[in-house]
């Protein structure tokens, strides 16, 4: 049994006929694995993860055939049981670290709060563990940072604190939602390295949400590409990036500036993601796809096995053997 099993997850807002922001997502994640979810903003990556944690509030609606994590059925879980799971076995790091820390409390207080909640640590013991955690996320002068307020930290430092908060109770799965997007370029690599180190040392699974394909190629063993709420291609790396089957994945990769090919003009995808009023009946990419044919417009393609991956496409790319 996998650590995480998601079958047919969808998230909707607004009227019943509005298109879902997450549309029939299937996902498997093994213990200790690094999986990346990529896609542009609005593709439903974050919403899917929030739904997994049970953090979608009305008017948002979540439906799924199956949401299984470490032997728990997340759909059947009571509010109290869910809280016992969140932050303990299933933790999340958010995009903007400074917004994700409560501005009114010192770093130490927030760490001790989680340690008391999930591990029952109190007083000096909690303090000591909090300090250890700050050291584990490689914060210099950790002892003095315990008494700092979030606004006194730099972005990178704040993200380290947020990571410390997330790993405090040694979770089985850490979801990192664009953990480096809000940071300076020089800091991004350090934070990613820290996440991967922690993942390796603790053997926890890491679900990395990103739109940076270069980062994904380096870190992840598998990748799920999302477009307009759907997983359009899922597969192992590096195979998937070597031979992307879905034209969208191919376009994403083509938009990537590569070292040594500076003269090649970057290619973008014409048009924009379909919105509420222009969602196609067929393949969601059809209006923007260079290889579109009549069957693409008529029916939506299912997720099917291709040469290196599973993809939602009737006319996959890169299928010939090298």
């Amino acid at each position, binding site marked *: 049994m996998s650590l995480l099993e998601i079958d047919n997850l969808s998230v909707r807002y607004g009227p019943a006929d509005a298109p879902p922001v997450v549309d029939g997502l299937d996902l498997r994640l093994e213990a200790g694995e690094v999986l990346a979810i990529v896609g542009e903003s609005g593709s439903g990556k974050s919403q899917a993860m929030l739904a997994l944690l049970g*953090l979608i509030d009305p008017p948002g609606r979540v439906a799924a055939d199956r949401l299984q994590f470490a032997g728990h059925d997340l759909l059947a879980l009571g509010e109290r049981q869910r809280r*016992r799971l969140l932050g303990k076995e299933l933790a*999340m790091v958010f995009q903007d670290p400074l917004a994700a820390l*409560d501005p*009114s409390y010192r770093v130490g207080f927030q760490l001790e709060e989680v340690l008391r*909640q999930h591990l029952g640590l109190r007083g000096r013991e909690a303090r000591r563990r909090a300090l250890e955690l700050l050291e584990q996320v490689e914060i210099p002068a950790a002892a003095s940072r315990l008494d700092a307020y979030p606004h006194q930290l730099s972005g990178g430092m704040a993200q380290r604190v947020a990571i410390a908060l997330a790993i405090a109770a040694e979770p089985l799965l850490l979801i990192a939602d664009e953990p480096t997007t809000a940071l300076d370029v020089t800091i991004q690599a350090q934070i990613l390295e820290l996440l991967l180190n922690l993942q390796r040392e603790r053997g926890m699974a890491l679900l990395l949400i990103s739109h940076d394909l270069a980062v994904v190629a380096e870190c992840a063993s598998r990748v799920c590409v999302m477009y307009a709420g759907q997983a359009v291609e899922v597969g192992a790396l590096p195979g998937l990036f070597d031979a992307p089957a879905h034209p969208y994945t191919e376009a994403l990769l083509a938009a990537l500036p590569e070292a040594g090919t500076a003269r090649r003009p970057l290619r973008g995808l014409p048009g924009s993601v379909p919105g509420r009023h222009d969602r196609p009946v067929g393949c969601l990419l059809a209006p923007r796809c260079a290889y579109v044919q009549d069957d693409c417009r008529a029916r939506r393609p299912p997720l099917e096995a291709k040469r290196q991956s599973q993809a939602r496409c009737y006319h996959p790319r890169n299928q010939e053997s090298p």
Partner: protein
Amino acid sequence: MLSFLARRLGLLIPTFLGVTLLTFALIRLIPGDPVEVMMGERRLDPQMHAEAMQRLGLDRPLHEQYLSYLGQLAQGDLGQSLRTRESVWSEFASLFPATVELAFAALLLAGVLGLLAGTLAALKRGSLLDHGTMGLALTGYSMPIFWWALILIMFFSVELGWTPVSGRLDLLYDVEPVTGFMLIDTLLSEEQGAFLDALRHLILPAIVLGTIPLAVIARMTRSAMLEVLREDYIRAARARGLSPARLVFVHALRNALVPVLTVFGLQIGSLLSGAVLTETLFSWPGIGKWLIEAIGARDYPVVQNGILLIAALVILVSFVVDILYGLANPRIRHRQ
């Protein structure tokens, strides 16, 4: 923190000087002969008039008069009441605790109920409870409190006979004024039942005076809570599995408190406005009633320096609220 304090203090001084200018000008703007205004007597004989003119310094140029007024203030001389011949300061000092007691009771009521109602309304957003609470809050905010007092008196005092109509304590009781706060003094005294009587006297005026602050705090708390509840750190705290009670009371309310405190501070001025009306209605022997009576009796030294004292009080309280604001919000405290 120290430089924060110093900067705030530096802003107080020009404001206070401005207020002295205002109260100084006030007396001189009153139509009529200034000696008669200050002495409170009409048709003094010319010799007495000239003497008084000289004694009060009214024959000197205006800027000298202002400077000597400031000099008097600096020495703590606030003049004498025309009616009682007592010093304005001692009258103020003896009446002030009554106003503080009333205002404190009103604010306590408003703070506790307002925070509670606002928080509940925000948590149950869009529910009947939310609409009902906010409807009541808007009604309270629109309340002519002098009328509200009459209605409450009509119902609780006249109809039901539950509460007394005026004053701070029944004449039956003889309580030594130690602190000036009746609730404390009655507790200190040996008199049986005096404390409960003082409480019964306090409750209606406190409700009347607390109504508008309560409404303002409830509305403000609700909107601040709604804003905070959408913040990332609340979602992040939920993702850490914290209990709803901790989320609301430790994380959300603490952050919502910052804007609410500011509003709380701004309420001090309108609270004193309300105190003027409430004290007049309930014959509550405080500074509001004192000033209105002084105006009615044309007791101008009391009017002049009573207003000055109240302004000083408002300035001081706003200063304290500013500091509290800094304490509640580390981001402001540390800003250099």
